C-alpha cells in the first residue's frame, strides 16, 4: 500500500515540477514586450554604440586635416602584438635643422587585441577609440590601415 501511495505522489511531484517550469516559459510567451532581442541589422540607422566602445584604433583629425601625432613611436613599442608600424620622415626646418615627422602610421587591425595600451601610452593623445565595429572584409589586406590621412599635418601647438 505504501509503495502504491509513493508511486502516485511521485507522479504528482513530477508533473508539478514540469508545470512550474512551463509556467515560466508560458509567461514569457504571452508577454512579448519582455523580448530583448535587437533587430540587427535592421536597426543599423539607430544603433548607437557606447562612447567608450572599443571598435578600432583611430587618429582623430580636426577640420583642417591636422592630427596630433609627432611620430615618436612610443605606441609602436607599447603594443604587445606589433600591430602598429611607424614610418618616419625627415623635413627641413626653416632654421636649417632637420625634424622628424610622421610619414605613415600603419595600423594592422587584424592583429589588434584591443588592449588599449597604445592609446594610454601616447604622450600627445593622438590616438582614440573608434566606434566602428563592422570590420568584415573580403581581403585581408584591407585591414591594414594608415591612420594619418593623406596630406595631413600636425597641429601646430604640439611639442615633443
Amino acid at each position, binding site marked *: 500500500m505504501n509503495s502504491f501511495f509513493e508511486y502516485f505522489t511521485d507522479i504528482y*511531484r*513530477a508533473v508539478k*515540477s*514540469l508545470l*512550474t*517550469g512551463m*509556467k*515560466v*516559459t508560458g509567461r514569457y510567451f504571452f508577454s512579448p514586450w519582455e523580448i*530583448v532581442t535587437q533587430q540587427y541589422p535592421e536597426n543599423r540607422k539607430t544603433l548607437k554604440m*557606447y562612447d*567608450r*566602445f*572599443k571598435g578600432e584604433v583611430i587618429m582623430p583629425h580636426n577640420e583642417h586635416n591636422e592630427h596630433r601625432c609627432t611620430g615618436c613611436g612610443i605606441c609602436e613599442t*607599447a603594443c*604587445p602584438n606589433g600591430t602598429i608600424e611607424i614610418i618616419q620622415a625627415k623635413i627641413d626646418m626653416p632654421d636649417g635643422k632637420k625634424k622628424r615627422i610622421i610619414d605613415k602610421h600603419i595600423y594592422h587591425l587584424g592583429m589588434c*587585441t*584591443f*588592449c*588599449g*595600451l597604445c592609446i*594610454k601610452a601616447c604622450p600627445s593623445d593622438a590616438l582614440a*577609440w573608434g566606434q566602428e565595429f563592422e570590420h568584415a572584409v573580403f581581403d585581408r589586406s584591407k585591414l591594414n590601415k594608415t591612420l594619418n590621412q593623406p596630406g595631413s599635418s600636425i597641429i601646430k601647438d604640439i611639442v615633443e
Partner: protein
Amino acid sequence: MKEVIHLPVQNVEEEEYHINMGPQHPSTHGVLRLVVSLQGEIVKSLKPHCGYIHRGIEKMCEKDTYPQIIHLTDRMDYLSAHINNHAVCMLVEKALEVEVPERVKYIRTIVDELNRIASHQLWWCSFGMDMGGLTCFFYGLRDREKILDIFEESFGSRLLHSYYTPGGLMMDIHPDFQKNVKAFIKYFRKKIKDYDELLTGNIIMQLRTQGIGILSKEDAISYGVTGPSGRASGFACDVRKHHPYGVYDKADFKEILGTKGDTFERYMMRMDEMLESMKIIEQLIDNIPAGDHTAKMKAVLKLPAGEYFQRVEAARGELGVYVVSDGNKSPYRMKFRSPNFSNLSVLDHISRGCKIADLVAIGASLDYVIPDIDR
C-alpha cells in the same frame, strides 16, 4: 579457392570500446577531447586530451612587459577576464610594494563580483542546455547581457576587457556605473527565481544530478579541486574568505559549503554564490571612495629579482600566478595555476561507473573553460 577466416566470436556485451567525446562535442564547451572507455553505456575510464587550443601564453609572457601580460591573461579563462587581470596586477603591485588607492580596490572588487555573476549565468545557460533544456540558454544569456552592457559602457568591451593595469585601472568607471549596477541587482534578484522554477526544481534535472558523480572531501583536496566544485564537497577553499584581497574583508558574505559533493550540490553552489556576490556588491557599491583611479607608477616596470606568487578566487576556482623575475622588465618565467586544469583532472575519478549521459552532466557541473586548461 579463398579460405574463409572465422573471427573469434566476441561477447559484445562485455567488450570495452573507446569513443571520442570531442574535440567538437557541444557538451565539452570547447575543443577538449575525452577518450572514454565504455562497457555498454557505463563509463569504465576516461582520458582527457588537452592542447587543442594551446597558445603558449606562459611562454609569450616571457617576451612581454608586465602591462602587456594583462591582455594575455584575459584570454585564459575568458569568462573571468577581470579576475585573471586582478591576479597579475596584484602580483606586480606586491612586488613593487605599491599601495593602490582605496577607490581602485573597491572598483576591482565590485567588478570581479559582477564578472563572477556573469560567468555563473553563462554556466547556468550551458548547464541547462547540456541537460536538454534549451530555454535556459536564452534566459541566462538575456540576464548576462545586462552585465555585459554595464561592462561595455564602462570598459568598452564585453568579454576581454584588459581593464586593470598594474597600479590601478585603465580609466575611471562610467558616471552611470553605480546606478546601472544597482538597477541590475534589483532586476536579477527577481529573475533568479525564474532560474529556480525552470531548472532547479525540475524533476528530470534532479534525478539526473542527485547522487551522481560524487566527489569526497579528501579527493577534492588531493586533486586540488577548488572553486564551487571543491566547496560542494565541503572543502573550504574560498580565497576571498581565507586570504582576503581587494576589499573582501570589508564585505560580509558567507562561504557557501556543501556536504554531499554530487552534481546537484555543485549546481547549487553556483546558484547560491550568485546571491552572495550580489550581497557583496550591494554592500560596496554605495561606498566607493573618491580618489584617483590609478597609483603613480614608473613608465617601465621592473620587478626586483626574486620569486612572487599571488592567488585570487576566479569564477571556477583558485587562480595562482607565479613569477620568477631576474630584474628585467619582463618575467624570466611565468606560471599560471589554472583552476580548470585541476578540476578537469578529477573528471576520470568521479565519472567511473556512471552512464555516458551522466558524464555530460558531471562535465557541465565542473564547468570547465578549455582555453584556461590549455593556456
